């Protein structure tokens, strides 16, 4: 038994290599191809072994020839049985792969379609934000924007500055008027000085008249009374003059006070207004910068979103490889069945031959005919697989559904 197995070392070696290739590449197509190569290796190895055996047994005893042929037939039949079993498990694996891929593709499809719709919603949001941003720069809109707020603050500030300056101007008019009034008061003072001189002179005149009346004696008595009255009048006039002078001086003093109050009203430091104005300008500048920055980032986000969407679309398109895989798996299933049938037949026939202990030529003929049938089938398998693999090339973006 062991020596017989050693005769099949090329087939065993090829099988191991092909299995490694299948495990490493992990692809259904390569799986099918390596399996076929394994099959061919086993068959050719079996044929070769049989030929060697018949050559060595020619000229030997008829009994020995019959025994050897029966043994070979039994071994080859056993081999066919083993390969048939392997084929069944391969078929099962292929259907498992098919199911796994189908499940995975289903999950991926729904995941990608969710991603696609969410991405679209996100893009719409971003577009809404962008249009809002452009509205902000548009003064025609009814909405109250931060820019309008800044503009109105600026207007209010201008209004107050204008108001302060206007108050200052009117105050200066008042101050000038008061200045003029003070001048008038000073003029009144100088006029009062003149009336005082007149009163003093009148007083002196009355005194002289009284002296002259006294010198006239009895005849001047009446005149002395008049002179006394005139003197009295001049004194009263002086008294009156002093009162006016006091009133004027009080007025000048009040005007001075009024000027001081107006000075408080008119003199406003402009640095507060300047600082406020600077802050509003700064705010406007920052706002414009911020608007620009946000708009730029939003359009970036928008372009990223469209790139995501096209990527998702490509992925969804690529997921159609599942169809091709399914097709390939179906082919594999069909042809595995075919091959299994061949081996089953071969197994049965060889077992029969073994029992009948027929001659070597019959066994060789049986194996050769089975091999020919199998190689024809294998050629068909290769053709179909090549076609499917060609159709499965998705790099050109055209998916042929079959």
């Amino acid at each position, binding site marked *: 038994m062991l020596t017989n197995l050693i005769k099949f070392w090329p087939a065993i070696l090829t099988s191991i290599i092909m299995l490694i290739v299948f495990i490493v590449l992990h692809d259904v197509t390569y799986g099918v191809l390596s399996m076929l190569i394994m099959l061919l290796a086993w068959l050719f190895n079996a044929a070769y072994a049989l030929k060697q055996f018949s050559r060595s047994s020619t000229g030997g005893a008829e009994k020995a020839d019959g025994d050897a042929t029966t043994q070979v037939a039994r071994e080859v039949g056993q081999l066919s049985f083993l390969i048939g079993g392997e084929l069944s498990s391969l078929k099962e694996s292929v259907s498992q792969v098919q199911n796994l891929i189908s499940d995975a593709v289903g999950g991926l499809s729904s995941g990608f379609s969710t991603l696609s719709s969410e991405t679209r919603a996100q893009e719409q949001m971003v577009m809404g934000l962008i249009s809002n941003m452009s509205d902000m720069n548009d003064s025609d809109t009814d909405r109250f924007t931060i820019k309008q707020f800044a503009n109105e603050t600026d207007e209010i500030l201008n209004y107050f500055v204008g108001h302060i*300056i206007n108050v200052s101007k009117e*105050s200066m008019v008042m101050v000038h008027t008061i200045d003029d009034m003070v001048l008038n008061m000073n003029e009144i003072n100088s006029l009062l000085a003149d009336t005082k001189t007149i009163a003093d002179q009148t007083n002196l005149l009355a005194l002289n008249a009284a002296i002259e009346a006294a010198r006239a004696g009895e005849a001047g008595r009446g005149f002395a009374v008049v002179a006394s009255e005139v003197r009295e009048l001049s004194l009263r006039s002086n008294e009156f003059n002093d009162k006016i002078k006091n009133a004027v001086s009080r007025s000048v003093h009040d005007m001075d006070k009024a000027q001081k109050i107006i000075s408080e009203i008119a003199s406003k*430091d402009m640095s507060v207004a300047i600082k406020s104005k600077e802050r509003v300008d700064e705010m406007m500048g920052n706002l414009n910068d911020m608007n620009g920055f946000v708009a730029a980032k939003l359009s970036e986000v928008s372009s990223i979103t469209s790139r995501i969407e096209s990527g998702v679309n490509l992925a969804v398109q690529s997921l159609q490889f599942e169809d091709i895989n399914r097709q390939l798996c179906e082919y594999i299933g069909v042809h595995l069945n075919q091959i299994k049938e061949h081996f089953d037949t071969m197994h049965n026939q060889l077992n029969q031959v073994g029992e009948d202990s027929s001659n070597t030529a019959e066994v060789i003929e049986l194996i050769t005919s089975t091999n020919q049938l199998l190689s024809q089938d294998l050629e068909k398998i290769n053709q179909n697989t090549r076609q499917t693999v060609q159709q499965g090339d998705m790099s050109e973006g055209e998916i042929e559904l079959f």
Partner: protein
Amino acid sequence: MSITTEKSDDGKQVTIKIDGRFDFGSHHDFRDAYRGSSESGTLFMLDMSNTEYMDSSALGMILLLKEHAGTLGGDIKIVNASSEIKNILEIANFDKLFSVS
């Protein structure tokens, strides 16, 4: 604070130079600087090269000068203003009323 006035020979241009602080305390001198000029079409030049400070009363006084120049059919011009002074004049929008440099 000191205010000096220079009149051109034909009396059509009056240069008023304001040094130091230009505030309420200057009202008397400032008014006197232009009150005497009654030549029609007089141009009043305010030389502010040495003006250090200006408050709202100064702005009010300049507006009164502008009114006075207006009654004469003349105009006013502010020259040599420092950046701080220019800032105040711009806040008051004076740069839109007459020439400021």
